């Protein structure tokens, strides 16, 4: 096992994270080494989307990803998303739509939605945006409020 020091580019900063085992998942590195616990741990099997982060701008499941596989790609977590205007608009939309109950799923949804709104040159329509949330589970809201949040967010992002 190399356990060599690992550096990752997280939220625009190079973070030195110490001797990370080769088998460690990005989810664990982010939460327990980088102290970024906004990325939530759910199923760890790729089914819930609570662990969604952006890798190279694409929503990705950090529970099924080795930290050492992403050394040359920028990583953005909810903490990073929350500082940019699109992220702030999405967060506001979720809060206003009543789409946050226990909130455990919410960072994953916010990251997945903000990425879609931020990426496209043409604005995706609401239905496409909702399709992009297919991988995120929410057990509290019944999703309808989340759909309302998608509508609000789409209006808010120019």
């Amino acid at each position, binding site marked *: 096992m190399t356990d060599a020091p690992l550096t990752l580019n997280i939220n625009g900063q190079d973070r030195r994270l110490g001797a990370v*085992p080769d088998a460690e998942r990005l989810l664990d590195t982010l*939460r327990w080494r980088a102290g*970024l*616990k*906004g*990325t*939530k*741990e*759910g*199923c*760890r*099997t790729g*089914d*819930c989307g*609570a662990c969604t982060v952006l890798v190279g701008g694409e929503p990705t499941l950090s529970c099924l990803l080795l930290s050492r596989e992403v050394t040359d790609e920028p990583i953005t*977590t*909810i*903490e990073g998303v*929350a500082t940019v205007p699109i992220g702030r608009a*999405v*967060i*506001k939309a*979720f*809060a*206003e739509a*009543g*789409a*946050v*109950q*226990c*909130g*455990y*799923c*919410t*960072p994953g949804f*916010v990251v997945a939605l903000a990425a879609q709104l931020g990426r496209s040159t043409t604005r995706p329509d609401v239905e496409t945006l*909702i*399709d992009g*949330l*297919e991988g*995120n*589970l*929410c*057990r*509290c*809201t*019944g*999703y*309808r*409020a*989340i*759909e309302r949040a998608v509508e609000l967010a789409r209006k808010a992002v120019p």
Partner: protein
Amino acid sequence: MRSDAEPKARGAVEYGADLEAPGMLWAALVRSPVAHGRIVHLDLAPARKMPGVVAAVGPDDLRTLLPKAALEAERPVFPLQEIRYLGEPVAAVAAQTLAQARRAAAAVKLDVETLRVDARIEDIFPEWPSAASAHDPHVVGHVHARYGDVDGKFRTADLVHSETYRTSGVHQVAIEAHACLAEIRDGTFCIRSSTQTPFGMREDVASVLGIPESKLLVEGSWVGGGFGGKGSAFLEPYALLLAIASGRPVKLALSYAEEFELGRTTLPAIIRLDTAVSRGRMVGRRVRLLLDTGASLPGRDFAVGYSIGFLLGPYRTEAYEIEGYALQTNKPPFGPHRAPFAPQSVFALESHIDGLARRLGTDPIEFRRLHAWRENDRTAYDQPVGPFGLEAGLEAAARTAAVWRTGLPAGHGIGVACGFWSTGVGAGGEARLFLQPDGLVILEGEREIGNGSVVQGLAIVAQRVLGLPASAIRVQYGDTATAPFDSGVYGSRTLAALGQAVEKAARNLEKSLASRVGVPEVRLELKNGQVVVVAGRRRQKLVDLLTPAERAAGGLESHGKHYGAEKKVDASRVLEGTVYPYNDFAASVHLAEVEVDRETGHIGVVRYAAFQDVGTAVDRTSVVSQVEGGIVMGLGTALSEEMMWTPEGRLANPGLLDYRLPRIRDAPPIHVDLIEGFAGAGPFGAKGIGEPPIIPVPAAIANAVADATGTRVFELPLTPERVARALKLL
């Protein structure tokens, strides 16, 4: 807007899964690989030798680490001999890292003598139990109640409608798995946990570990979904035991596989219903229920006594006989799960009634209206029914159904189902308010778990009484040592019961201020960040009304208590066991439109409507979102969620790969209609809303399928294959 929404969405609040402490160890459970057995030899030595391991505890350590009482507990922390379900923890280890702890747990040597596994209730009682069956060792609970001339009604009936329904085990699946952290601070045992009931947890942990409550402190973290699953002691005793053994803080968090295998959830049941009909009315009913309660403790079972009443429904019943058995099997213990067992009972009853209405050629909504409870009707146990919005709900549903019927495409069907729920308003709670010169603080022992009842509901209650703007009211969370007692966030009771304590505390505040000003009543306002007391045209800053002592303390404190009296049942109707009184009456009427693929049995839910009796909607956004959430969770119970156990007692689908939850595209358009005006026991007439919305869902879907196809499905969930079988496609 809820004050917790934005920080949660930013990922800035700490849930149980996020808990951390300096010097913390990670724990792992050693879990039984068999569903039933006797421990012959359990050797922790190999685990203790593993790298990073600091402590390992098993049954033998209870003697040395805990007072004697811990061994005398009805069920000690670890089984001393008999293992009752697959995955049951038999020991636990703590190590520097989670990986080390898991590896060490796997190194433990466990030698068990396997015993016969009882995994299915139909194998225990292939026939309906007879009088002698009550003594069968599997029977851990037996409820029997009777009223009226049941035999006579059935003898003289025009028609008897008889059916048997089956329901499956379903899991709460909060997205955050259980997690807690235990440590010892200044001789006090401290637990931080993702829990709905910090005070209940304190009581439970104390009794399991045989330590006094006074030495135990529980602090709730934010909860990533509860749904009944994050109630009393679960992981906490193991974590605390390891903290005692190691002298270090210990974190214990479950994986999803463990979450499923340790269960504490709804288990399968078989329900037999017979209804006697005379002159187009239901005049008598027999209910028989076999409920799997897994490895639950004998005599501790509330499930049968609580659910069996729901099999009579919110309908007038002239004569009935109900009999239910709680059966012990080698599955994890039954546990509360959002309206425990009500969606399943109601699936059976409302399917049954629907089929009966169709058989009689009566409109299903009209048929229900004919029998529906109205205020001051008597319940099956002879309680007066309180203000009840069922009839109003049915009328509204009938109007919507008529609109949906026009132009209903072929292959589509509309189903209706009713539910009712009795909010746990009896359970006690206390509130402490602290009015400061710049705003109001509500001190709470339990966290908001998601539905908004704490962070939003309680704040609005205080706001309505005192008149402050929402921005000036803050909920602050304490632990069981600093916060006032409350029973917890469960049973739809938080707003309805604890809200009353907050209302009283707020009124006390108001009274105290009014007497200081010398008027009968005052209201509060916020002006330039200062609380102002308004009496008619007089306005005074709060600070100017405080005594020097209060000023030094930072503000004015007030208390309120609510300890509801439990209502009573007519005990003469109960021949055996315990049934529970209803304390409040909330009605739900649901409508579903489905599309059934006649070739594959696949069900698509086209649209949905819920008519919910809320008493008073204290916060509309929260209520609507709560109703929508309950409905979609119910769609999971209706269509896809099913825990599948093998005959050896192994859960075949311990994860989301094969336990299917509804996703965003599964949520149909939902119309939520709040029925107000039938006041409940809560503040301003509010009724509990946490559980009711899930209750009628499986039945509404099943009835819509029957409407679309003319065929009834008698088993939950209604998977495509089950529907295909009912349609005789195979």
